[in-house]
């Protein structure tokens, strides 16, 4: 609306070496304030050691209608999974 602060998407990396993960969004006037607000809103219980903020309108997203063309091709490629192959027990761990 009139003077609304922009929306930011917030990504947090937890303690155990995992990637940053999307945790939610918030409004802030700029990136610096977005990080400060994210610290208050999303890390009150040691949830993270690193914060990324991205202005929401800079995120490009796939659309639900593209589900077919995007993901169906991988459904028929079962051989991409290790369980596709039978390995004799005698061979040992693989």
């Amino acid at each position, binding site marked *: *609306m*009139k*003077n*609304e*602060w922009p*929306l930011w998407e917030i990504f947090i990396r937890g303690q155990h070496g995992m990637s940053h993960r999307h945790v*939610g*969004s*918030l*409004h802030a*006037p*700029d990136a610096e*304030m977005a990080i400060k607000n994210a610290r*208050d*809103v999303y890390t*009150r*219980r040691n949830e993270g050691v690193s914060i990324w903020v991205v202005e929401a309108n800079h995120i490009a*997203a796939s*659309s*639900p209608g593209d589900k077919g063309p995007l993901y169906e091709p991988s459904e028929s490629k079962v051989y991409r999974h290790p369980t596709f192959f039978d390995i004799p027990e005698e061979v040992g761990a693989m």
Partner: protein
Amino acid sequence: MYAQMVKSEATQDDPEKLAAFQARIDRGEKIEPKDWMPEGYRKTLIRQIGQHAHSEIVGQLPEGNWITRAPTLERKAILLAKVQDEAGHGLYLYCAAETLGVSRDELTEMLLDGRMKYSSIFNYPTLNWADIGAVGWLVDGAAIMNQVPLQRTSFGPYSRAMIRVCKEESFHQRQGYDAIRKMAEGTPEQKKMAQDALNRLWFPSLMMFGPSDKDSVHSEQSMAWKIKMNTNDELRQKFVDQTVPQIEFLGLELPDPGIKWNEERGHYDYTDPDWSEFFDVIKGNGPCNTDRLAARNNAWKDGAWVRDGLLAHAQKKAARKHAAE
């Protein structure tokens, strides 16, 4: 509940699309913001999530009232953390509502001019420290009853917000029970205060679940859409069953002489709250409606220069950076 009597919107969409949509929900799929959804689903959710968010925000007022007067520094720090959590809950929920195409300012303005409601419970006053214990124990306890099943709601952003909220909520109830337990086990005067707080807040807490199922007109569609997971009476009964032993443990008297174990039903019987009082509070005539809305309106007005100033500063900084590039 935090969202009481949310009117579900009629839907005039293509029956084929509607059936496919319902089938997705029945299969347990989550609906995401960019997916097709019936207009009624969208509008009902905006109203429900908005009301839930407003309740978290307005709910800070009765407790904030006691932060500076907490009996010890530790209790003060705990209450401060609890109230800060509620601000966070409001923010998670506003963001979930915004994914449905309503802006934050629109939501705020609808609260401020009375077009949107918040839970009736926050129109009751917190008169003393015992009330703060009772609020955490009973009001957050009742909220948990409703929020736990909502983690499974069909709308993805709402479900994710509820998961975050629920993780934080049990601290709220425990700190409340701990505070009132201290008083129930304290001096006779303190015990009397605990009893008085329980007596005053009992029926308003039961009202949080909304009118009885027989008078609850909007449940069916919302339950089919999985944005309401249980009926009002189901949740209210569950709350009574859970809370009675907690009252007995405190050594307090039951706040309702109608509470009796019913062997046949396997539940406690209890007296229904006075629904005329509930409807009166909803209409704006509770003890604190005027105060609560005035406090929110003032906060919004008094904060305007900060919001505008920070935005102007950010825009100036961005323009300068742009010019230097």
